[in-house]
């Protein structure tokens, strides 16, 4: 996998928001899972944390344009997702790995990633090289022509990441991408994330605080469908104290943020 460019050695240029939500509400069935969310994201790796049922997956699905907003305003890469042509345009530059992703078991990794590249309407001439590159980046080169049904859980997850990045997305949404990866693969994945985040907006939903601290430039904490905290990993670590639950400073900070939000909500 490729390594990140050193941020300390570079200058910074500012562009418009990759994700901009105002009062966003999204339903998961009848339940209002995202309730009045204001969120702005730019390039970088953003970690999305929250307890079960916080609305993380529903938010990811809405940002992936799979679920429509029930209310509020959502623009992705500077474009609204209301019109059909705008939706198509946004989707061409989108990468998405769902929490539970289905696949066709008889496809090989190369066929699967190539199929997704075709669905993303990539230029035909660029597909073969892009497929090979994305497979290489996730470390599946040796398994490129293996059928998906023969892969382990971690390899399948990496194939899922390969299909998500095949079109060099400007907005990459990864829902629990490290599930099934062994420790070494998780380290490689963090490097890949840092590399992807140099030019794109990457949003990673996870329950592993340590992944967020290691790979993300920004942390978002969601609870009961609302944004309850946003800041740097260092800032999150500074939120907690010894009395909070967790094995690390960041975990204790995360616990403290949730504890305070619950206390405020109970008032």
């Amino acid at each position, binding site marked *: 996998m*490729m*390594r*990140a*460019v*050193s941020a300390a*050695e*570079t*200058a*910074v*240029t*500012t*562009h418009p*928001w*990759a994700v901009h939500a105002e009062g966003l509400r999204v339903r998961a069935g009848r339940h209002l899972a995202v309730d009045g969310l204001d969120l702005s994201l*730019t*390039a*970088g790796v953003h970690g999305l944390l929250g307890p079960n049922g916080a609305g993380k997956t529903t938010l990811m*699905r809405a940002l*992936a*344009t*799979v*679920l*429509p907003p029930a209310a509020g305003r959502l623009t992705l890469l500077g474009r609204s997702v209301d019109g*059909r042509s705008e*939706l*198509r*345009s946004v*989707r*061409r530059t*989108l990468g*998405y790995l*769902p929490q*539970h*992703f*289905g*696949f*066709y078991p*008889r*496809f*090989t990794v*190369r*066929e699967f990633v*190539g*199929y*997704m590249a*075709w*669905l*993303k*309407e990539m230029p035909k001439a660029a597909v*073969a*090289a892009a497929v*090979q590159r994305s497979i290489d980046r996730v470390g599946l080169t040796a398994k490129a*022509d293996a059928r998906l049904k023969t892969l382990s859980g971690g390899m399948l997850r990496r194939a899922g990441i390969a*299909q998500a990045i095949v079109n060099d997305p*400007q907005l990459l949404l990864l829902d629990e991408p490290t599930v099934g990866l062994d420790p070494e693969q998780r380290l490689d994945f963090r490097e890949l994330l840092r*590399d992807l985040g*140099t*030019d*794109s*907006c990457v949003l990673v939903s996870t329950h592993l605080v340590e992944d967020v601290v290691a790979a993300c430039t920004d942390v978002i904490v969601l609870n009961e469908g609302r944004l309850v905290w946003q800041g740097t990993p260092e800032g999150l670590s500074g939120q907690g104290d010894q009395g909070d639950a967790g094995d690390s400073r960041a975990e204790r900070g995360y616990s403290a943020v949730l504890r305070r939000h619950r206390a405020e909500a109970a008032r």
Partner: protein
Amino acid sequence: MTTTHPTMSQIERYAAGDPGLDEPSVWAIEVHLEGCADCRARLAGATTADTRSLIERVAMGLDREIAAMPVPAGRSRPWSVLRHRWYVGTLAPWLVMTATVLASAVLLGELWAGRPSLVLLIAPLAPLPGVAVAWHRRADPAWELIAATPAAGLTALLRRTAAVLAFVIPALAVAGARTGASLALMLLPCLTFTAATLLLGTLVGVRRAAIGLIAIWTLVVIAPSLAAARLPVVLAADSAGSWALATVLLTVMALLRVNGFRRLSHHG
């Protein structure tokens, strides 16, 4: 969005091969240059004429070598690509079921001489099970992935409907040839019902539309025809023109209501 670029001073030092730039810095600049056309242009401007000439000669040599090499194609075969793109394995059970029902209708028709042609009666419904599941969340394991691509919704529905018709039409032709039923009276109602399913699908969803049309045709046409032991008027020999007209009208109406398919993009 925010992106990061090496400074001009770093690029000039990199171009000059400055030994003061440590290895990680050189490596970081090279990684960035791979993906940033602007910085590559800045680098080109920072090099000497001799260096540019050398790079040009190397690039031309590389281009010649690459052009002479075979294109990497992996192990995908053309038929395999076609199958994966236009025919989804998840449609297979429905298409097998359709073929089985048609084969059964042919057999029953041969056993029940003198009865109305079962093949003719069920032909309009033949593509509907496949169309009903063509773009449906529960029928396609990769639905969630595909739903976030530009091909989601209407595009996926139309591609897969075309795949269903590409299977059903030859199957009907074979069944028709076996029973002697009019080919036009099988294929035209089949296309009419497909267009009607798509049109109604803009209002109530494609799956519900297909189920509704199957139920209505079964109750209003198939059951009475079997009970009366004669073909209905709508399938009389001179009705082909009306079916052709209905197909055209319903297709045009479905195209006019194309915005009604927007809900498919999100919900399937």
